[in-house]
């Protein structure tokens, strides 16, 4: 504002050049200040931003050319074992450096950067703990190492352990903890310093349903308070119970990113399977083939079962229902094995495994060329939060 005032105070009788120069300077100053403010804001913002991030070990590529931007909220990181989830997490946690590309957490590179690390909490996948210590000693030590004075660290550790239901076991040595208790101790050390970015690598492994509820409730509360929670798992229902926003990773690549409903739209891109169990499946098949309804293949897994493969599930469903009524078929069941996230996940993983543009799952068809690397990147960009802004 002061720059603006300076510009206003410029004498009116001054010539045009001398009057415009201070204005230009003021504008420049203002722009510079605004840019600095934006930088500060960016640095303060709770976010993870990766640009063409790759990491390899010798000839093995763990993460390949990943670009993304994650803001506050809960994000599910979904991928099969060996897909690069843990490597990705460890890079974000500042434990390993990217081979190429740029990674910023809260506006700065995390590797060896205490200013960033103080804002990150990490729950590693491994089950290892200091078995000779009690849960309270362990979490207190982690709080002290995070910068709290010993009395405060002790109080925070107790609170963190209570949050995950370990108040009765906190004075027992962790060597005697069950798998679920170990997970909760790991989670307690991850949140003991109130991090803005919480990285959880398979945090629900070994937990019982009750602990699971406690953990999920805590994570949801933290996300509501403005934290970014990145939650990795290979179990789909865990993600579905926690968040609507997903990152699907396979072979080191983010094969899809975005809201659950956006990813579900991908279901329309790949062929659906519809299973109809009825009394005369072959007759039903011939009736379906007689009409244009998107059917691309028919199979008969058993005597009373017809499996239909289609590009246009809605149209095909309608056609099946119409034929069932028209022909007076005795319908036992009609199901779609594709109508869940598991199917989508396997589809995307399979697509990534086969490499871009092979269309191996599509069985031909020109529209399958959309699976080229460029198309996939474009699709990822579309799904990035704020891409449209």
């Amino acid at each position, binding site marked *: 504002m002061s720059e603006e005032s300076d510009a206003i105070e410029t004498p009116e009788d001054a010539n045009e050049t001398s009057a415009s120069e201070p204005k230009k300077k003021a504008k420049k100053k203002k722009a510079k200040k605004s840019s600095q403010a934006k930088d500060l804001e960016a640095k303060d913002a709770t976010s993870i931003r990766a640009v063409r991030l790759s990491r390899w070990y010798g000839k093995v590529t763990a993460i390949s050319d990943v670009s993304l931007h994650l803001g506050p909220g809960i994000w599910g990181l979904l991928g099969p074992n060996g897909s690069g989830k843990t490597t990705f997490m460890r890079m974000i946690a500042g434990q390993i450096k990217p081979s190429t590309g740029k990674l910023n957490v809260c506006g700065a590179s995390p590797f*060896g950067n*205490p200013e960033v690390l103080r804002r*990150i909490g990490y729950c590693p996948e491994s089950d290892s703990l200091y078995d000779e210590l009690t849960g309270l000693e362990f979490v207190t030590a982690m709080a002290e190492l995070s910068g709290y004075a010993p009395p405060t660290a002790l109080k925070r550790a107790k609170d963190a352990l209570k949050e995950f239901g370990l108040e009765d076991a906190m004075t027992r040595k962790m060597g005697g903890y069950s798998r679920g208790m170990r997970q909760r101790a790991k989670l307690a050390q991850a949140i003991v310093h109130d991090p803005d970015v919480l990285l959880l690598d398979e945090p629900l492994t070994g937990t019982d349903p009750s602990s699971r509820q406690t953990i999920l409730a805590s994570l949801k509360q933290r996300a509501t308070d403005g934290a970014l929670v990145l939650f990795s798992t290979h179990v789909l229902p865990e993600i579905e119970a926690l968040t609507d926003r997903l990152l699907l990773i396979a072979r080191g690549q983010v094969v899809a990113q975005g809201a659950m409903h956006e990813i579900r739209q991908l279901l329309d891109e790949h062929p659906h399977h519809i299973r109809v169990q009825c009394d005369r499946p072959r007759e039903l098949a011939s009736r379906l083939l007689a009409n244009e309804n998107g059917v691309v293949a028919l199979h008969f897994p058993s005597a009373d079962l017809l499996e239909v493969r289609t590009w246009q599930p809605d149209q095909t469903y309608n056609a099946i229902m119409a034929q069932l009524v028209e022909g007076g078929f005795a319908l036992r069941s009609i199901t779609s094995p594709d109508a869940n996230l598991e199917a989508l996940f396997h589809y995307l993983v399979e697509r990534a495994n086969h490499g871009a543009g092979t269309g191996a799952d599509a069985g031909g068809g020109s529209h399958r060329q959309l699976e080229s690397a460029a198309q996939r990147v474009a699709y990822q960009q579309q799904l990035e939060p704020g891409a449209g802004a």
Partner: protein
Amino acid sequence: MSTQAPAVPGFGSSTAAMIRLSFLRTLRGRKLRVAAVAAFVVILFPAVVALVSEDAEPATIVSGGIDWGFFRLLVFLLPLLFASGSVGEEVEARTLHFLAMRPMQRASIALGKYVVGTGSALAILWAGLLLLHLVGYATTPTEMIEQFGATARAGGAASFLLVTYCAIALFWGTLVPEAGGMLTIVWLGFIEWFGMLLPGVLRFASMSHFARELGGLERAGWDPVELGTQTLMSVPDVELHWCALVIGIEFLVFLGLALLTMQVAQLRFGKA
């Protein structure tokens, strides 16, 4: 969201926190017990000699015990036990994530571990040394008091050497966490142990030689050399303050390298 996390701790406070954690773990762990057993075994032999042999001089028993038990054995074993695996074992157990994730200089991790490991080794060394002195001079109380200065001098030199060897072990343990013990054995075995036996200036490669000079022990190995009727001192004499300086420099170099390595290394986190 404005962060609720505390400010980044200073190097001193994070090292102090690391020392507290390492101390607690060392107290609860097995290493102290193993080291105590090793020290006991070292003292056992001179103790038996002192009890069985009537002719043996107490001073000979104690100085022999210090030379063989401490300068040739314990100062090599204790760094292997307390320092070489201090980082590697956490990499192996996958617990180093918890420490490396904290907002502190990674050098604090190594320094905290070094202080506790070396402190434990020194405690064992001095406990053993005092016990040896008490046992060796048990039958001659006057000598026990008179000779305490000599034992303390040897103990001081052994401590200086131990502190340096712990820094060497820590360095190899941080540089190659999965093979820190092996590399420490190779370095201490070849350069330090065999080095202290070599003739001429070759012996200067070994800090053990300088520490023995500081501790007032007799030279070992090929010095002096018997040539016919002549006895030659092949290793040049070095003033004691130069001996201390050389060991001190080696200690600082290795400790500095260890902390630097810890600060910049990725510590095998890349491996699943």
